[in-house]
Every structure is written in structure tokens, then in C-alpha cells.
């Protein structure tokens, strides 16, 4: 039950109902309040004769009556006064107006008595006019000493007119009032309004009393979907609060304008004003609630347009938008200077030379400085992307606008450096591991080789034993070769070798290598043909590494060539490279992709029965690469072709 109530409490339906109630209450309260203010006169007066409205109208008529009977008197009296023509004309005009006015009123009665002549002037037809007048609650009396002013607006003026005259003046409205003049109309209205005013007061009070709890409820629940829940802002809250405030003010001003333009004397206009007024209250109420939600959500200041602009311009974004303000400022200052120059006339040249030119030079200078920074950053990024990760970006030369970008690029560069360093370290560790393991293998192998040899000397009278010893000897030698190759392959592939490039004659090297392999070539029954260009081919290479490459190729040729076949070694040169080509016919079919042959431990014979470690071509390729050359293998049926390109020696 309790939860249900809470759910109802925060439901949109309840909120909307409360909102409508508050809105209606506000409208009725405001409406009755305005009525109340409008009819303040009625409210504070006991009777119609107490109202300011009555006093005003009554006083005007008293004034008129006195003026008519005491000053103007008659047409002839005015004409014989001997005043100026204009004055006479003016007084005559007044005379007729007042005469007309007095004759139109039906409830106004006066009694004027000349104490010297005992002459009586009155508009009352009754015998005892004075008694009738004096009986009325609204009676007033004037003579030259007495001003029964009763706060009558024209009391002073009237008294002045009677000063120095022997007149006594009584006036009143005769009750009961008869229809036909303003007194009657107004007294009817007064009675009506007087009756209405207590109702209006009640409506005002009731509206306010009803509105307060609903308004408080709205203040509490607005923006919340449940008790203590998150503040959810509605679409109206997306309007910047400062903009919202200004819009509300503008709406208020517009509605005031509309209201003041209305005469409020017909129903259409009243309806329009009421509509505008209702909309105003709606806007105001939603505005207040929106502000409350923003305060609850602690977003009142953040959600202002001013704050947003400030935030956009000055908060730490990569791109500082305030530089755009500089652009605006630049244009504005230039425009102002040009306007000034145009205005200055004769001083035009002076302003032009001493203000406009230096200002633009300065602007161009700072813009150029920024662009220079940008181009420096771009240059650095280009350098880094092409692999020069040690390129130094001098941050001191970068302007403020781009310093953050420069910093970010530096940190990317740092990360890259670290990654590369770690990769190098990893490769080195791998090489070290292989080298260390190989060293550990070498020591026991030394004993194996030594004892196999010692056993051989033991004159074993056993053919089988001799045969087994032969196998042991061969395999231990093979093991030794494998270990050495392994060390070399890991060093070559990790680039962990020093290269001292010198000027080398490729042809001489091939001749030397073939000299070394002469016996093995003969043993393999191969016919080696060396074809060299007439000119010497000088390459830039490390002699030892180059020998190892050629040795590995020759060793391959000797091991895997078809007996009695020809081997072609060509030496040539292209624009940049010295070319060494070795072609031979394989004894076994080659069904391995060429690129796989340079991988470690891959051998042409899958059965691996022949001697060799499967590292020869891999080592040769690695050694070629670390010397800046290229190593390619082509297989065409049984034709096996290796192409080594080494950079030419440049004097």
C-alpha cells in the first residue's frame, strides 16, 4: 500500500495533474488578485458615497454648480463683465457646457443662498429644498469660511470661488437614486462589486491555499522518477538556463505589451488577454520547475550558454576554439582601423602606415609561427612513420596552440621506442638462449668425440664394433656442425653480427670458394662453369660473411645436385647490385615452395637422410640481408636457382 502510494506519488499522471491544478490555481489567484487591485476603491469604501469615484464625480458637479451660479451667473453678466473678448468667449463656452451638464444630471441637487439678498438658487423643485438636501448622507456645505471638503478633490477651488461672497452652498445626491446619470450607474455597480468582493477574496485565498501544497509537491517530485532517485531532466531543461530566463522575460514583456494595448471593454479582447495570461503562467511555472530540476541536478550554472562558450573556448580540448575568436577579433580590429582611416581623411596615410600595416604584419607573423609549428609536427610525424623513431621534436619551438598535440606525439613516439626496444631485447634474449644452450651442448659433445676417437684406437677385433664406431664418429661430427650452424643462424637472423663492409671482387671470391670446394666438387662428379662479366664486379660486403654465403651455396650444390650434371655460376652487375647466380639440377624432385626453403630446418629432402642441418639457406639469406643485399630462390622443375644481389661498391 505504502509502495503503491509512492509509485503514484512519482507517476507522470500525478505530476501532470498537480501541474494543471497549480496552473489553474495560479490563474485564478492572479485573476482575483488583479480584480482585487482594480476594485480597491470599492473594497475600502463602506458605501458608494465613500468611494473616490463618487467623490470625484460629485466634486466636479459641485464645482460646476458654484461656478455657474456664483461666477458666471448669466449670459448678460458675462458679456457685461468688461473682460477681454477672448476671456468672454471662453467663459460663455464654459457657461453653456456647465448648463448642459447640470441639466443632464438627475440625482444631483444644490441649494445656494445669498445671505445679503436672501436670494435662493436651487435645482430642487421641492418646497423645502434645503431640508431635503440636508437629509441626504452625501450632503456638503460651503461658504466663504467653511470648506466642507471631506477630501473632495476640488474642495479648495470651490472654497476659493466663494471667498468674499455672501453665498451659502449646499449640495447632495438625492436618495433614492433615479436612473439617468452616472451616479445611478456607478452606485448599482458598486453594490454589485461590493457583493462580489468577498467572493473574490475567498477565491484568491482558496487558490493560494490550494496551490501551495501542490506546488511544494511539484518542487519535491519534479525531475525524480522515484524517491531519492536520479534527477532526470526533461526536454525543456536542455534549453540553456540563461537563454531560458531571457526567453521567459521576453514572453512576459510581449504579453504585457499585448495586455496594455487592449481596451478590455469587449469580450474578444478579454479572452485574448486571458489566453496570453494563461500561457504566461504556464511558461512561468514550467520555467520555475525547470530551474528547480537544474538546481537539484546541480546543473544550473553548467547548463548556461555562457558557461558552454567559456568551456568550449578555454577548457582543455585538443583544438582551442578561442583561436577562432582571434580570427573574429582580427577582422574586427582591421575593420575598425579601416573605418578610422577612412574617417580620418588627411590622417589616412598615417593611420595606414603606423597602425594597419604593423597590425597585419604582427598578425601574419603569429599565424606563420603557428603554421610553422604545425609543419614541424607534421614533419616529425612523417619521420616517425618512416621508421626514424629517434627523431627529436623540439617542443620549445611549438606555439601554445599546438603544444598539447606535440606532447601527445612525443608520448606516442616514446611508446613506439619502448616497443621497439622490447622487441630487440626479446630477439637478443632468444639469441642468447640459443647460444647458451649450444655452449652447454658443446662440452659433453667434446667428450663424445674424444672417447669415440679413443675407442677407435683400442684395436677392437670386431668388424661390427668398428662399423658402429664409424657411425658414432660421423654423427658426432654432424652434431657439432648442427650446433655451430644453429648459433650462426640465430645470430644472423637477429642481426647480432657485426658487418665491416669492404670492397670485394665478387669474381675473385667465387674463384677462391671454388678452390676451397674443388675436391668436394670432384667427389660429387659435378662440372662447375663460372661465367663472369669482362669487368670486375666490386661489391660492398663483409668478406667473411660473403664467404659463408657462397660456401653454403656450394655446400648445397655439392650435397643436392644430380651427379654428372653441370652447375652454372654467373657473375654480373645491374645498376646498383652485383649479381651472383648459382644454378644446379637437383637430384631429388623439389616439391617445396621456394620461400619455405629459406626457413630454418627446412630441407629439400623431406626424409632428412642426407647430411646438412637445413640451416644453410636460412643463414645465407640472413647474412645477405644484414649486408643490405637480396636473396632469392627460384625452382623450375628440377632446376634450382639462387640469386644473390649485393650492393655495388661506390667509390
Amino acid at each position, binding site marked *: 500500500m505504502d509502495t503503491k502510494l509512492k509509485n503514484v506519488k512519482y507517476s507522470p499522471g500525478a505530476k501532470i495533474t498537480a501541474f494543471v491544478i497549480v496552473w489553474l490555481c495560479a490563474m485564478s489567484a492572479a485573476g482575483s488578485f488583479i480584480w482585487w487591485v482594480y476594485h480597491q476603491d470599492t473594497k475600502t469604501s463602506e458605501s458608494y458615497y465613500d468611494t473616490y469615484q463618487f467623490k470625484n464625480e460629485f466634486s466636479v458637479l459641485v464645482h460646476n454648480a458654484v461656478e455657474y451660479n456664483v461666477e458666471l451667473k448669466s449670459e448678460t453678466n458675462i458679456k457685461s463683465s468688461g473682460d477681454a473678448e477672448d476671456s468672454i468667449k471662453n467663459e460663455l463656452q464654459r457657461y453653456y457646457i456647465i448648463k448642459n451638464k447640470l441639466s443632464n444630471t438627475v440625482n444631483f441637487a444644490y441649494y445656494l443662498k445669498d445671505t445679503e439678498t436672501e436670494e435662493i438658487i436651487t435645482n430642487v423643485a421641492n418646497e423645502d429644498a434645503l431640508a431635503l438636501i440636508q437629509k441626504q448622507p452625501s450632503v456638503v456645505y460651503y461658504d466663504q469660511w467653511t470648506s466642507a471638503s471631506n477630501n473632495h478633490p476640488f474642495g479648495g477651488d470651490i472654497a476659493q470661488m466663494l471667498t468674499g461672497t455672501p453665498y451659502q452652498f449646499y449640495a447632495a445626491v438625492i436618495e433614492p437614486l433615479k436612473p439617468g446619470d452616472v451616479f445611478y450607474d456607478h452606485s448599482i455597480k458598486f453594490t454589485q462589486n461590493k457583493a462580489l468582493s468577498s467572493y473574490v477574496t475567498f477565491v484568491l485565498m482558496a487558490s493560494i491555499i490550494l496551490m501551495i501544497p501542490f506546488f511544494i509537491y511539484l518542487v519535491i517530485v519534479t525531475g525524480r522518477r522515484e524517491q531519492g532517485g536520479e534527477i532526470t531532466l526533461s526536454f525543456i531543461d536542455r534549453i540553456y538556463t540563461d537563454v531560458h530566463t531571457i526567453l521567459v522575460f521576453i514572453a512576459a514583456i510581449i504579453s504585457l505589451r499585448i495586455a496594455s494595448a487592449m481596451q478590455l471593454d469587449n469580450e474578444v479582447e478579454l479572452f485574448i488577454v486571458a489566453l496570453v495570461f494563461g500561457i504566461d503562467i504556464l511558461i512561468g511555472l514550467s520555467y520555475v520547475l525547470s530551474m528547480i530540476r537544474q538546481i537539484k541536478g546541480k546543473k544550473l550554472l553548467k547548463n548556461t550558454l555562457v558557461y558552454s562558450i567559456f568551456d568550449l573556448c578555454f577548457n582543455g580540448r585538443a583544438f582551442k576554439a578561442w583561436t577562432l575568436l582571434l580570427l573574429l577579433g582580427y577582422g574586427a580590429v582591421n575593420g575598425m582601423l579601416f573605418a578610422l582611416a577612412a574617417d580620418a581623411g588627411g590622417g589616412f596615410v598615417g593611420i595606414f602606415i603606423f597602425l594597419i600595416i604593423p597590425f597585419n604584419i604582427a598578425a601574419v607573423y603569429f599565424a606563420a609561427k603557428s603554421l610553422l609549428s604545425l609543419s614541424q609536427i607534421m614533419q616529425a610525424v612523417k619521420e616517425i612513420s618512416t621508421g626514424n623513431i629517434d627523431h627529436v621534436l623540439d617542443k620549445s619551438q611549438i606555439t601554445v596552440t599546438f603544444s598539447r598535440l606535440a606532447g601527445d606525439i612525443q608520448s606516442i613516439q616514446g611508446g613506439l621506442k619502448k616497443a621497439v626496444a622490447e622487441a630487440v631485447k626479446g630477439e637478443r634474449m632468444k639469441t642468447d638462449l640459443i647460444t647458451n644452450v649450444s655452449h652447454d651442448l658443446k662440452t659433453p659433445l667434446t667428450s*663424445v*668425440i674424444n672417447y669415440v676417437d*679413443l675407442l677407435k684406437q683400442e684395436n677392437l677385433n670386431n668388424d661390427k664394433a668398428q662399423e658402429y664406431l664409424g657411425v658414432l664418429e660421423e654423427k658426432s661430427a654432424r652434431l657439432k656442425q648442427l650446433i655451430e650452424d644453429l648459433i650462426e643462424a640465430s645470430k644472423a637472423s637477429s642481426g647480432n653480427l657485426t658487418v665491416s663492409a669492404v670492397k670485394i671482387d665478387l669474381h675473385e*671470391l667465387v*674463384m*677462391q670458394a671454388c678452390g*676451397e670446394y*674443388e675436391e668436394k666438387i670432384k667427389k660429387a662428379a659435378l662440372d662447375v662453369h663460372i661465367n663472369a662479366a669482362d669487368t670486375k664486379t666490386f*661489391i660492398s660486403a663483409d668478406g*667473411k660473411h660473403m664467404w659463408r654465403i657462397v660456401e653454403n651455396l656450394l655446400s648445397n650444390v655439392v650435397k643436392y645436385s644430380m651427379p654428372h650434371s653441370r652447375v652454372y655460376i654467373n657473375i654480373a652487375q645491374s645498376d646498383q647490385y652485383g649479381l651472383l647466380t648459382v644454378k644446379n639440377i637437383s637430384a631429388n624432385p623439389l616439391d617445396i615452395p621456394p620461400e619455405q626453403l629459406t626457413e630454418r630446418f627446412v630441407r629439400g629432402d623431406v626424409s632428412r637422410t642426407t647430411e646438412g642441418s637445413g640451416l644453410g639457406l636460412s643463414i645465407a639469406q640472413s647474412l645477405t640481408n644484414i649486408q643490405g643485399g637480396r636473396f632469392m630462390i627460384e625452382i623450375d622443375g628440377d632446376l634450382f636457382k639462387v640469386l644473390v644481389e649485393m650492393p655495388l661498391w661506390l667509390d
Partner: protein
Amino acid sequence: MIKQHSGVMEMDKLNVLVCDDDTAIVDALAIYLKQENYGVIKAYTGKQALKALAEQTIHLVLLDIMMPELDGLSTTIKIREEINIPIIILSAKSEDTDKITGLNFGADDYVTKPFNPLELMARVKSQMRRYTALGCLASSSGILKTGSLELDPDAKELRVDGEVIKLTATEYGIMLFLMQNMGHVFSIDQIYEHVWNEPSYSAENTVPVHIRRIREKIEINPKEPKYLKVVWGIGYKIEKC
């Protein structure tokens, strides 16, 4: 206590100190050395080696590098402070830098494991001859000499460690030309033109084949020549010692 098998000959024998932490290697080497009629003293650490040197007359040391207590390089330095006997380092470390370090620390030779026992014996004998024959051969005029390699133009003889090497006429011609210009590198063509006395057409690999054969005769390990060196892609030379 070092016990020697042939007690009588003890004083005449040349003693070799074998030092390695791997007993199998020490034992095998002892057998080979005894076959060559050397006295053998065994040690398993650098400290033991120094102790043995202090106690006995030793003519040559075979020394491992990676040993407990005192490593081979430190031992070499200590030995060199005292005595000028030949030291041959035996090591699994096969880098050029390791070899250079060992030789610079005072070793006379550097052999990498696993070694060929016969090659090692040849090196031991070579060092021993150099050490014992020191100063006994006065070099007469006209003899070309580098290390223990001698060429006598008068006798038309080439000797290594005093032993005469049999050479063909062409091989002798090549050796004479190279030893007359010791330390100088000559290309195949240059050698051909000087030795054959006719222009080279560079089609033949005669010269490299001859040089390989000479190396096989004069070098202990032809693949790592001490005297007749290959400068790859440039030519050949006799190393000046």
C-alpha cells in the same frame, strides 16, 4: 698428489697441466697426452691449477674458461704474472670476441670445443717445440721467417716448427712469392702472373686450388689458417707474426 706412471723418466718428460671442470674431458686429454709421451697433471679448477704450477715443473697448460672458483681467463693472467709457459685455452665459447679476449689475456692459442683431439695434439706439440727450442736456432741470412714458419731460399725448403714440408715446384713458387712480400695481399691474377710468369685469363681456379693444398700441408687446421690466410674477395697473404 700427482702420481706419474713411468716414474723413472719423470724428470726428462715434458709436463702438461690439464685443467677443466669436466673430468671426462680431462681424462681423455690425459690419455692423448700420454700417448704423445707427455707427463700429465690434472686440475679441475683454476685454484688447483695455480697450486699445481707452484708445486711442480710444468711446460704447457691446457685451460678451460668456464670453471668454478677461478675462471680460465683470471687463471691465465695469474700464470702470466709468474711464468712464460705456453697456454692453450679450450673453450665452448666460439665467438671471435672470445678468442681475441683469450689471446689478449696472454694465451698462446685458443681451441674451441668440441675439438678434434688430433688437431689439439698437433697444437700442443707445436707450442711445445717453440717453447723448448727457444733460441736454439739462429736465423741465417736469407731465411724468410714468420712464427715457426721458415722458408730457406738456398735450400729451397719450407719448414714448420722445424719440420720440412714437401712442396711441389708451383707450391714452392707461390710460398716464395708470398713470403717475400709478407703481410701483403695478392689477388689470384697477381699471384698467377708472378709465379707462372704469363698473363692470367682468370678463367681457371688453379691458384686457389694450389693454395688450399699448401694450407693443408702447413696448417694444423686448414680451415682456420695461421700463416697462409684467405682474404675473401680480395686475395691471399702470409700473416706476418
